[in-house]
């Protein structure tokens, strides 16, 4: 349980007192890093994620082209000049894919952070206070979970109007109950721990107990689920883009690119193959990383 208290590790060559204090907390962290490095699929997942993050950050340095400029070289085969070929407007597909990484990772990150914040807050309240707060919030989660996710997202975007930001909001909303329920169940078990009972016995305020004692002990599963949720969010964003409800042209969003490619599949299959591959590898990376983190943090789940 103490794993989830993420204090920064203190380098061993610091002053003696700090060293002595840190030795208890830094050791599990060192162990965690070691078991992470030994976990092959976690490392592969993390590498994939890092590659896409680097592509997103350094996109302008990685390509001589711009993602929005049309040229006359339409639907060119993959070649040395255009690694992944060009699309119907003569835009370099490799360029559009690495710029697309910015959009997908951004949407995934913001949407999932949003769901985690709102979901965790609701789950915390439901689990800690119980009673009517719990019934109300749990019913809300039930209702949100009663819709197949993508269908609710489509409905929300239909209401807000198509666009990347609205897709992001929709994805955040549909993922709230996942984190909310997880947080609620964690809180329910942590609430029974001795240190919480002790804090209550000495008359500590509820808000302080929640922030100082309960929340820090609930983060691990949320973090693991957040990594897996990132994968889902990337697919959901691409799905909305594919249906024309997410990012709008000329934004180089992977789902939108796939949808544009549909007319040219026979003529230029690379317009369809590479954006899809990008989505799959990103999702695969987050799935592997999430599975790995779960194995490392929660060995009971491991098979």
């Amino acid at each position, binding site marked *: 349980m103490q794993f989830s208290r993420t204090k920064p590790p203190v380098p061993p060559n610091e002053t003696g007192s700090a060293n002595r204090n840190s030795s208890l907390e830094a050791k599990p962290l060192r162990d965690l890093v070691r078991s992470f490095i030994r976990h092959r699929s976690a490392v592969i997942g993390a590498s994939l994620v890092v590659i896409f993050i680097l592509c997103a950050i350094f996109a302008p340095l990685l390509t001589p082209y711009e993602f929005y400029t049309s040229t006359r070289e339409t639907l060119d085969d993959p070649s040395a000049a255009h690694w992944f070929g060009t699309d119907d407007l003569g835009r370099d597909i490799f360029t559009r894919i690495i710029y697309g990484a910015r959009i997908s990772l951004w949407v995934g990150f913001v949407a999932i952070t949003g769901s985690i914040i709102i979901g965790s807050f609701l789950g915390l309240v439901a689990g800690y206070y119980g009673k009517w707060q719990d019934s109300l919030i749990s019913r809300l989660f039930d209702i949100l979970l*009663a*819709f197949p996710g*993508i269908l609710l997202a489509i409905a929300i975007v239909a209401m807000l109007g198509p666009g990347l930001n609205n897709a992001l909001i929709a994805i955040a909303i549909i993922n709230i109950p996942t984190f909310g329920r997880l947080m609620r169940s964690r809180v329910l078990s942590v609430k029974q721990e001795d240190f919480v009972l002790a804090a209550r016995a000495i008359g500590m305020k509820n808000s302080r107990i929640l922030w100082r004692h309960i929340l820090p002990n609930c983060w691990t599963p949320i973090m693991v689920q957040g990594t897996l949720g990132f994968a889902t969010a990337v697919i959901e964003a691409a799905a909305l883009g594919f249906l024309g409800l997410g990012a709008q042209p000329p934004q180089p969003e992977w789902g939108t690119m796939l949808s544009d490619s549909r007319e040219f599949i026979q003529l230029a299959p690379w317009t*369809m193959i590479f954006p899809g591959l990008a989505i799959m590898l990103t999702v695969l990376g987050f799935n592997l990383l999430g599975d790995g983190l779960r194995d490392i943090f929660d060995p009971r789940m491991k098979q």
Partner: protein
Amino acid sequence: MLTYTLRRILMLIPVLIGMSLITFSIVHAIPGDPAKTIAGDKATPEQLQQIRESLGLDQPFYVQYLNYVKGLLKGDLGTSLITQVPIAEEIGPFLAATAELTIAALLIAVFLGVNLGILSAWKQNSWMDYGAMFIALIGVSIPVFWLGLMEQWLFAQQLDWLPSYGRVDPRLGFEPLTQFYVLDSLLYGDFHWLQDVLMHLILPAVALGTIPMAVIARMTRSSMLEVMRQDYIRTARAKGLSEFWVIYKHTLKNAFIPILTVMGLQLGLLLGGAVLTETIFSWPGVGRYVYDAINQRNYPVIQSGILVLATIFVLINLIVDLLYAWIDPRIKYGKE
């Protein structure tokens, strides 16, 4: 069992009310005026006002909602703005198309998923295990719409093995009876129709079934591994039962509850994934019906279509819950 069933059904009521409220509010917040959609661009303000009054759009929100619920209870899902046909009448064939596709996808997913999981658990840590789990990992990471497009490109365009659009070749003059085309062609006893219908079904069903297949395979593997360590499995082996019987009778039977749960959850994913799959393969199901309605601002259809799909999803989950409370009596006492 009866009290548990009743309690589960009672718990459904607030969920259904909440769902209807959400779909109703969402649709009523959609920008654009339904009256204009009906009357067209050339309508006069008086005509628009008349349409609003006849639809009750000039009444306050809660009155509109109560009328809507009153209608729902009578089985009235509203009227399509485009075709002017009651949705309850119109939606039938679309529902059947989605049901047929979903069932086909689930059958593929369960058959392949369970067997892949069994293979993996049986030969744990062998190359077969790694191979099967690699397939499952790709399966959970692949976007259904990309898989659909890849299938169309490979199997329909490059190899020309299977059709890529629709439910049946229109040139065959197929006349639906129950709207379940596979069943219909069997009822007619027409082998050519059956073959054509099945060939149309394969690509979308495989696309839609892949994610659930992968999830079921992973769940089957871990559940089987757990059961295989039990004493009674060792006993079964010790008394000389063949490996086949040990796996399929003793182990699978006891490993099945978590697998069943996953299947129930996956059905929801299938209903959601159907929207995307139906769009790609021009499959005339509810997903496509709703999707077209969004583009046409056909509010009643969006509202009722989503509500119908969500209700089906909730009912399936209820059935799955009751089913495994029935299989495993510990569950109904364990719950609050």
